[in-house]
């Protein structure tokens, strides 16, 4: 039932892709058929995955594909079910949003066929990754996912930046995939087979297990965008069309998380606490770096991409905690960490998808990706603005929306550190928790900036001033995700219960304490330790705020509220350039955390030659670069080029030299064999 649904979902996505090839002949019908199929595929994924998750189904099947002695194994279990649901939800939203969004590509010189084809392949590949049950099928699906998304990143290839981004993306995807392949290779070597079933039985020596873990962490971390392997992410995600960015940021990163969980918790047979520590530290690092870099961006989609790095970091912190607890024999707490991580996975898919869709809407209507030129959109695009606000609140982890719940759970997991024996861990974990707190606060600051600069205040450019609200489908796509953000924020108890089968599958126990006091109260560890009644919080907010509103606005219906010019120290009329820009907004933070970025700042003063004291013009330039680029990636590139140059010298072009090579080789080999 669930597996067949999942397979139908894959087929649906494939069909949508293949049908897309006809887009040049019948643009409009093909468009709608494609997105309908995509939506159905998403729906199928949600249903199939949901069935597997809620009823803890495990179904396996073998397809006559692949190598003759290694057919493709498929399998649906609660874990893959959960990720199917995640994929499905965002896919549905995208399929609602897409038809409106691709309109701007229809009249470009680019045929939309490629767009539809690779979108379908992309979704199908992601769904296939999570239901693959042997290394070969997994890798095929995985690479297909990378490849198709690469073509989508390169879709608008008339811009050189996109081409560079696509190249970098595919290169790093390839390297990561090779690492994953090796990780599977280790397991296969010990387990004597490529099917996950055989790998589960592999009895690894600790050293080889750690090697496998390191390879997997490298490979999946590169895809998930863990710092400092994140470098491709902020370049590739903005380059793709926005609904694809939503899929990549919202879902593809999650598929990498899935791979990590599947590999460490399932195949590798039980995590170890030191791996968990590594993951925890890596997670904290990329959470903090991600948000700090995001703060300095003024390209909306780039900024969102950096926030993906941050959120992946948070997810990995949860996983790391789970591994530490599991490795030190506290399964109950391990479950808590795992649930927190999975919950945040779901949430990030929702709000990051929502935010990218919103960014796409703005981009389509105002043709502006740069915050510095936006402003006042809340009046031009009220609905999009509302949904985007919900996204901002959720990602800033503010109650009562969903982002808060998962971070709260992560905190709760971290606060259980005293249960550990090792004093080092006990001291270290709370510190990482504080890092998480810092991250959350900075994220809030960042999204105040985004929303304030983009949607509030006055428009900073003509296009933005004349932007119009997007069409119904696009609004529906955003609305769906926004609604889910609220639902999963207000009903955490059910969500946690729904996640329990996964915990049972991976760690052998659930989280019974979470709902001992009924659906209203979320009490992850015990009612005594911590409790959170999200529905009551929502109700309370409405109660107190609403009561006040009612009290205060009951009278005075008669006279309309007067509007006046705000106070500007008496300088003439207010204009848009008086507002704080995004660069200005983050200036204090830039001063405080200066060493983190590579900041190039220069001020050019032009003075009146007649009287040198008079300043006629002032030009301010600010470039902020990613440090890891300079310190890690450029040296690598230089090394390869240098090596290539050196090797090139052997090919002199003189045939006599070549003959000498031949003679020399001959002599050496003869000498070797005798």
């Amino acid at each position, binding site marked *: 039932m669930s597996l067949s649904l999942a397979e139908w979902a894959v087929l649906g996505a494939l069909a949508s892709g293949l049908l897309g090839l006809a887009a040049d002949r019948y643009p409009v019908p093909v468009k709608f058929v494609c997105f309908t199929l995509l939506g159905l595929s998403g729906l199928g994924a949600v249903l199939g995955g949901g069935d597997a998750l809620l009823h803890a189904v495990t179904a396996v099947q073998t397809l006559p594909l692949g190598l003759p*002695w290694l057919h493709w194994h498929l399998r649906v279990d609660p874990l893959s079910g959960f990720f199917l649901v995640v994929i499905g939800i965002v896919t549905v939203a995208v399929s609602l949003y897409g038809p409106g969004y691709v309109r701007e590509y229809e009249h470009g010189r680019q045929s939309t066929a490629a767009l539809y084809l690779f979108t379908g392949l992309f979704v199908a590949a992601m769904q296939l990754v999570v239901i693959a049950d042997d290394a070969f099928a997994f890798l095929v699906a995985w690479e297909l996912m990378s490849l198709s998304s690469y073509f989508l990143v390169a879709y608008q290839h008339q811009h050189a930046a996109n081409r560079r981004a696509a190249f970098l993306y595919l290169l790093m995807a390839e390297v990561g995939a090779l690492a994953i392949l090796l990780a599977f290779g280790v397991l296969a070597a010990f387990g004597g087979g490529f099917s996950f079933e055989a790998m589960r039985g592999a009895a690894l020596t600790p050293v080889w297990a750690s090697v496998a873990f390191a390879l997997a962490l490298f490979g999946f971390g590169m895809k998930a965008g863990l710092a400092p392997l994140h470098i491709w992410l902020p370049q590739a995600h903005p380059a793709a069309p926005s609904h694809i960015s939503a899929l990549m940021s919202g879902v593809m990163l999650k598929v990498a998380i899935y791979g990590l969980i599947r590999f460490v918790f399932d195949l590798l047979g039980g995590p170890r606490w030191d791996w968990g520590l590594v993951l925890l530290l890596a997670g904290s690092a990329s959470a903090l770096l991600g948000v700090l870099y995001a703060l300095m961006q003024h390209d909306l989609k780039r900024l969102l991409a950096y926030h993906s790095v941050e959120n992946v970091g948070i997810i990995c912190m949860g996983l790391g905690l789970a591994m530490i607890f599991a490795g030190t024999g506290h399964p109950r707490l391990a479950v808590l960490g795992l649930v927190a991580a999975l919950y945040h996975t779901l949430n990030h898919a929702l709000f990051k998808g929502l935010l990218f869709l919103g960014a796409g809407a703005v981009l389509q209507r105002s043709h502006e990706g740069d915050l510095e030129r936006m402003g006042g959109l809340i009046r031009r695009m009220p609905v999009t603005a509302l949904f985007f606000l919900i996204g901002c609140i959720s990602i800033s982890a503010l109650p009562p929306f969903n982002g808060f719940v998962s971070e709260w759970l992560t905190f709760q997991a971290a606060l259980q550190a005293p249960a550990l024996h090792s004093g080092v861990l006990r001291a270290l974990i709370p510190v990482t928790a504080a890092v998480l707190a810092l991250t959350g606060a900075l994220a809030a600051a960042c999204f105040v900036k985004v929303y304030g600069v983009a949607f509030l205040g006055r428009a900073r450019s003509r296009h933005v001033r004349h932007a119009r609200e997007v069409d119904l489908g696009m609004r529906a796509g955003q609305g769906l995700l926004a609604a889910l953000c609220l639902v999963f924020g207000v009903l955490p108890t059910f969500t946690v219960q729904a996640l329990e089968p996964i915990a049972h599958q991976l760690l052998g126990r659930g989280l019974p304490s979470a709902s001992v006091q009924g659906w209203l109260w979320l009490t992850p560890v015990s009612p005594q330790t911590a409790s959170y009644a999200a529905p009551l919080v929502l109700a309370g907010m409405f109660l107190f705020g609403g009561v006040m509103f009612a009290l205060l606005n009951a009278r005075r219906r008669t006279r309309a509220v007067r509007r006046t010019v705000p106070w500007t120290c008496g300088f003439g009329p207010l204009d848009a350039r008086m507002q704080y820009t995004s660069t200005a907004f983050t200036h204090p933070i830039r001063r405080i955390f200066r060493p983190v970025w590579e900041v190039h700042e220069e001020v050019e003063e032009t003075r009146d030659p007649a009287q040198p004291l008079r300043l006629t013009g002032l030009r301010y330039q600010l470039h902020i670069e990613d440090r890891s680029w300079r310190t890690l990636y450029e040296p690598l590139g230089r090394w390869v080029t240098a090596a290539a140059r050196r090797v090139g010298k052997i090919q002199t072009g003189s045939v006599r030299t*070549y003959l000498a*090579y031949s003679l020399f080789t001959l002599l050496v080999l003869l000498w070797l064999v005798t």
Partner: protein
Amino acid sequence: MIALYLTLALPFAGALLLGLIGHRRVADRVSMAVSGATFAASAAVAVRVLRAGPLLSGGRMFYIDAFNVYLLVLTAFVGLTTAIFSRPYMAHEVRAGRVNARRMRLYHSMYQGFLFTMLLALSTNNLGILWIAMEGATLSTVLLVSLYRTPESVEAAWKYFILCGVGLAQALFGTVLLYFAAARVLPRDEALLWTALHAAAPALDPAVVALAFVFLLIGYGTKVGLVPLHNWLPDAHSEGPTPVSAILLGLLLNVALYAVVRMKMLVDPALGTPLAGHLMMGFGMLSFLVAVLFLHRQRDIKRLYSYSSIEHMGLMTFAFGVGGPLATFGALLHMTVHSLTKSSIFITAGHASHIAGTQRIERIRGLIRTQPAIGWGLLLGTAAIAGFPPFGVFTSEFLILIATMKAWPWLTPLLLLGLGIAFAGLFRHLHPMVYGERPAGQGPVAANMLPVVVQLALVLWLGLAIPGFLAHWFDQATHLISGVALSGSGL
């Protein structure tokens, strides 16, 4: 039996015929027809072998087993597709005045002659004939490499001729040594028959056989393009007409590697030591690593892809050297998918250079916007050769990597490094060629994309699922070469 003789006779007759009428307009159609017939005949042979197992012809001159039957078919097939491709391509060259009718006659005749030598080398049972066929392959293509008579092409032809000639001379010396060793345990007239030698291999004298293998490895390795004997390869492939490059890359290298492996199969039981395997691993790894670095500094599109061929031949040689069912199976599969992919890449690359009017990479721009079929063909082909699923190259590389992981774990980082660098080297040049705006005054050209489509489709098919009979052959060949069948070893 008849089918086999036909497979050999058709291209030979074709060579003679086209030597007479090659300058006529119908020549290209005749060439296509002959190649098609050859392909059909080879397919018949394949069916025969599939039904009745290995086929040893009367007089034991020819021997077809699981190892060379699919190479036979593959060779005939690539010969056919390339012939199809060469029709519009050479027509364009004639129009452009780069070749005249006389040279077209040479071209067509030699094309068939080359196919004949390839098929002969594959199907013969006699190591001496094998050598003769290999030499014949060189001789028949030298003048094709220098067909354009540009200084570069002549230079390339010279290097090709001299280096391969010297190499093959060494191979002949190896053959003589082998004969010298075999003549003591076998009757003189059998001493060069591969079947007899294979049967008597354990009795051969190790020392002499080791010597012989060195000469054979260097000799045929020169044709495989193993570093440091590879220097002729990029020149010959970049300067000749593209169809010639396509068949040289797609077929000649395979056949040379086939010869090396055949020798290894003789040497291993004779020596009882993994010497041959280790030598091949060393050469393979060296070629692989050096070639991937070369990729980065290319300025000529066909040179670029010839270096990628060196890389892949190195990988296969390495895999055969590793031995064992996994690696051998992977290498056999890799031979197939590589020649399919690479020849289709050369087809598109040829058209691309026609579009831009040059082979210089920095002048080839905006292919997708100019002629989507060619742009996408090149892009997908390169993605396939770079080892992206669902294309078959991924499957073979997967097997090879896993096998290396099992046998020589500390060599895998080198392989990974190489694959990464190779990927970067290919795509850094590919991106500006296929993407971007279409340059002013650049228009589409007449092209027949059927071969590309068919070949890439085949590669895709092999990536998704390997058909039973092919898998069966691969498995038998694996059993022949490595002594263990993959199906038995259990995946």
